[in-house]
């Protein structure tokens, strides 16, 4: 029985972790995989750390949340602290290198820690708007649960109406996806 890949994505509200998780979930579902995605939610309306729990496998998924993740992606200092609980020696922990002074907080028990400069690249090289798509690229490369083609198709499905109005957006998003994959490749 193949175990599902367990992914926890965490960031500040507005960093788009939930939409990234949802697009990946839909892409994997389109591939015919068993997928379960659930956001954390509470009574806070603003200012909380947002966590997305995503599981992708070949057999029906068990419980919606999990104790330890195969991949954790944390995009802010608070997200790093919040998601340490999902880490064990098998976990690949991905964080953004522009988070200041976070080195001390990184989970020392992680199987592997990958720092990627996604925030920096989105600002200097691409566009801050596609930051979460870089993260999406990083996640699909780190987990290898969805192919780049299917990820592109999922983006097309989700953002196609915007791409129609402005074809440059398509290029920008696809470039961000590829760049995110590259970052993980290099960090390995």
């Amino acid at each position, binding site marked *: *029985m193949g175990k599902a890949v367990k992914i926890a994505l965490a960031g500040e509200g507005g960093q788009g972790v939930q939409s990234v998780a*949802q697009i990946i*979930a*839909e892409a994997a*579902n389109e591939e015919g995989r*068993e*997928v*379960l*995605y*659930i*956001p*954390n*939610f*509470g*009574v806070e309306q603003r200012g909380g750390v947002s966590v997305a729990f995503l599981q992708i496998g070949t057999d*029906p*998924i*068990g*419980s*919606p*949340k*999990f*104790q330890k993740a195969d991949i954790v992606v944390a995009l802010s200092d608070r997200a790093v602290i919040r998601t340490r609980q999902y880490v064990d020696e098998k976990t690949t922990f991905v964080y953004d290198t522009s988070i200041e002074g976070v080195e001390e907080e990184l989970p020392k028990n992680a199987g592997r820690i990958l720092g990627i400069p996604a925030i920096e690249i989105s600002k200097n090289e691409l566009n801050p708007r596609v930051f979460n798509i870089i993260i999406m690229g990083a996640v699909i490369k780190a987990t290898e649960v969805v192919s780049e083609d299917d990820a592109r198709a999922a983006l097309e499905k989700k953002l196609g109406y915007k791409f129609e109005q402005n074809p440059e957006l398509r290029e920008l998003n696809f470039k961000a996806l590829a760049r995110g994959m590259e970052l993980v490749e290099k960090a390995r």
Partner: protein
Amino acid sequence: MAEKPIQGEKRVFMTGNEVVAWAALAAKAEIMYGYPITPQNEIMHYWTRLAPKFGKRFLQTEDELSAGFTTLGGVLAGRKAFTATAGPGNTLMQEPMSMAEMMRIPSVVIIQQRGGPSTATVIYSQQEVTMTTYGGNGEGLRVVYSTANHQELFDYTIKAFNTAWKYRFPTFVLGDGYQAKMRESLTIYDPEEKGLEFVPTETFLGKAPVNGVKQPVHLRNTYNTEEELYEVITRYMEEYLKVAPEIIEHREFSCEDADIVVVSHGVVSRAAKVAVQELREEGLKIGYFRPVTLRPFPAEELKKVAARAKTLLLVESAFGQMAKLVKDAIFGSTVALENLFKPGVGITSEEIVVRVKEIEKGALAK
């Protein structure tokens, strides 16, 4: 507008709340009455988006007491009506649903459990089992289906309408915040295309005269004497117990030779299933038992399992609410009972595996 909401079969990927709205449409529900409360809000959000396209209606009331009573009013007027709620809203819903029990008004209520008591969390629990099964000031004359995945949420929401109208007991679909908010795939379909026949609704009040004579309809929730009430309740209980075997549903596997049987319901049974499959692969004699109907409870079915097993491990996201139903059902059995109670939080297969191994180890040490 008269087109069917669902043509043929369709594989979809959506949240549980959206699933419920589609299922109510598929079941030909005509109106939803409701009051917002997390985590079930999106049922009414999706319903209000979808329903007008098919000539269906929605009324937001001032609270859950009113949502429950207006649902019953809609049913009395001959409409296929339903409502949905959670947590403290479920507490208020018990008053109108008690009236439904007393007056035998068919009604469908979807519950997405959240943490309790009181406001607690808006997220998840299995702490509304006692209230949903026996919450009214009466004998629990109702049906409760506990679902575990989106396919079941769709199937049992449709089924609930038929159960309610066939037997005239209020019928609950008991989900939870996880099922409400998570996304997974399922197949939605038109039930009639699959050969399912809907039990017709009827107008209880304001019926047309027969041969020019108006027939009085007498639905009571008030009785003058103890004896009068006793007679009615005795008759209702007899009817309930008679139809219970037709309504009862459960799932089990690997129980034939099992030493330990994991008993769980709802979303927790997903983790239990994975745990039992893994432990079986390791060669341990473990079984799986899951009541789908919590009321009426599959007592005879569980008794048979308890007679063969050494231990039942009761697992739930509450502090023993399902366990009470189990103990009542298997009274007289000498099977050992162990538990994994985690009120208000989710339970993973890993935790169940650890607990089973602890019990195994303890048994060996003896």
